[in-house]
């Protein structure tokens, strides 16, 4: 018998999980979806963001400041990665995959080396961070709603940024046709560097944002590195609204399966991705 309370909490969990996946994948939508760079390390950056954020939180005890610090480190890391690793292999997808796979393993090892046991996000007095709300017999953490709102806001911002502002238009032009965009006076090299950097920084920021809910463990990057890839694949490569729907789909599938058929576990998300890849390789939400 499925009770309404169960359905309610399943729906809220589904929305939260979708939002988390979207946070993990949003950087990849730019890097992989628009720039065509196979960045397997995106999930590792996501996990690194969580670790860094919790560390900063212990040091400063200030939520926004820690977020800002994590984002800044993300920018530095993204810049370094782009300059050292990605720049030599633009347009060579196999080398990109091989390199970022190495980077992913390197980051996993690094995280386990520095933080061997994982980090627990502490209980705080802040209502938004650690408070609970009673909703028809279900106790739900407030931060879940915060995450859902952040996910929607981020979607809105990203859509506007990519479709309405000059930066987004230039970026899309540059990925459509590099030479032509250069002819029209777009500084492609600069643009790609900043886009990649922004994507990596977004991944770290996403990791930081989910850390109060999931804590920082090594499962986080391992789990999300493939999920993050599932989003642009399922949603369709060049489609930033597709990514949003795809994360809703995968998030709900995962949570509903976890609630009602718990034996399947994490594999179901990957099975969705595999099925979509085989049946409709161009993605189901293609524009």
């Amino acid at each position, binding site marked *: 018998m499925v009770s309404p309370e169960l359905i309610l909490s399943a729906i809220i969990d589904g929305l939260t999980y979708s939002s988390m996946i979207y946070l993990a994948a949003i950087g990849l939508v730019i890097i992989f979806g628009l720039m065509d760079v*196979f960045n*397997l390390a995106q999930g590792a950056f996501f996990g690194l963001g969580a670790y860094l954020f919790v560390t900063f939180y212990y040091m400063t005890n200030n939520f926004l400041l820690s977020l800002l610090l994590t984002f800044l480190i993300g920018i530095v890391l993204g810049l370094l990665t782009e300059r050292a*690793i990605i720049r*030599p*292999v633009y347009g060579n*997808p*196999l*080398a990109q*995959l*091989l*390199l970022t*796979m*190495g*980077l992913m*393993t*390197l980051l996993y*090892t*690094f995280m*386990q*080396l520095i933080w*061997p046991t994982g980090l627990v996000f502490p209980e705080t007095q802040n209502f938004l961070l650690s408070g609970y709300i009673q909703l028809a017999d279900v106790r739900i953490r407030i931060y879940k709603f915060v995450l859902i709102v952040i996910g929607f806001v981020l979607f809105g911002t990203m859509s506007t940024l990519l479709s309405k502002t000059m930066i987004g238009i230039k970026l899309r032009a540059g990925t459509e046709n590099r030479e032509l965009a250069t002819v029209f006076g777009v500084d492609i090299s600069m643009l790609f560097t900043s886009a990649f950097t922004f994507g990596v920084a977004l991944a770290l920021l996403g990791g930081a944002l989910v850390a109060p809910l999931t804590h920082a463990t090594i499962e986080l990057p391992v789990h999300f590195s*493939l999920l993050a*890839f*599932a989003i642009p*694949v399922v949603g369709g490569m060049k489609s930033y609204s597709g990514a949003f729907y795809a994360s809703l789909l995968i998030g709900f599938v995962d949570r509903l399966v976890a609630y009602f058929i718990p*034996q*399947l*576990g*994490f*594999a179901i998300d*990957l*099975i969705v*991705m*595999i099925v979509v*890849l*085989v*049946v409709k*390789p161009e993605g189901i939400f293609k524009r």
Partner: protein
Amino acid sequence: MEKLRNYLLPNRFLGYLSLTILLAIPWLDRSLATGIPLTFVWALLALSYNIVLGFAGIPSFGHAVPFGVAAFVTAMLLKQGVPFLLSLIPAALISGAVYVGMGLPGYRVRGLYYGILTLAISEAIRATIEYSAQTTVAVTVSTIPEMASLEGLYLYLALFTIFLALSLVTGMMDIISTKRKRQKVLKTLIVILLFIFLAYSGYVIFSSSATFLQEVGSGLPYVRILRFVYPLNVYLVSLLSLYISYLLIKRIITSPLGSTFIAIRENPVRASVIGYNVFLHQLIAFFISGVFAGVAGSVYVACIPTIQPDVFATDKTFIAMTGAILGGLGTFVGPAIGGILAGFLRDYLSTITPALISLGFLSLQQLQLFPSLILGLLYIIVVLALPYGIYGTWLLKGWKLKRKIESIF
């Protein structure tokens, strides 16, 4: 006879020499005999990975799957009491079939999306096994009875003698065929030094095995025999499986089938227009690669007696990738060299780590990760700086270096 020799034996002095030295290593330092077989397993895995990525040009990131399947099948068969060498064959065939099954989606999913797909498949398998069992699924194999037999020791000694003699003969021939005088002197000097080393190791091997056999004759307890013979037999099995697989892979790739693989790698459209069935050939490549990955998985069971779901983890794929790329994709010997090098480095770095403990700010568990960190860095540097790998770069640019060295003398 000449044909057989071409198939079975290396053509050059260097090949014989390296085989002899590899056979001698576990006797000179007994602690190495337990560590190196695993290195050979990684080298074999890298060799099998090279068939898919290097020769057939299919980016598969799920190479841990055939490896893990074979490891589990072998472990389960051994539990049933099947002899090791017999369980190797079904394990290899099953993992080949599994890899073909993984290759089937490649009909629709092309290029690098296929790579991501295989990564997802291997992760899904690992997650399912770990999740459905809730606890760790582990198959523990007790000592494999064949590995404790004395026949293995006799075979070992015979093989060592043969390769020692062969490297002696080819070394002589190499010196004789050298024309330039200075080069000849230099070569003679190096060869003599090498032979002094080999003679010493031969002395160590035969004297220690003679005393051991004498003790066995006078009634040595079984445990002592086991401790002496077991690591040597595991070493022999892993080295022989690596060597034989290398020969077979070389034979396959130099055959018309292998040339077709390379043609498909270079230009799939053209190959299909000429009339080759591209997809079928890719599946064959998957099968061959899966079989050898399966052999690697079986030998892995002999090295590490407890098999856990982590044999399906991505880091196994990554080890194969590191070996293949470090050595050179699309070369014959390269992946073996790369795999052995990576394994040696890992071993060597983990011997350094106890020294770092005394610095006092890292725990043992953290330090075990240290070698992978350095290897990961090395891997990235090699992909960026030497896109053809060590051996591939040597094949491309080595002659310049050779000429430079020759001009000095």
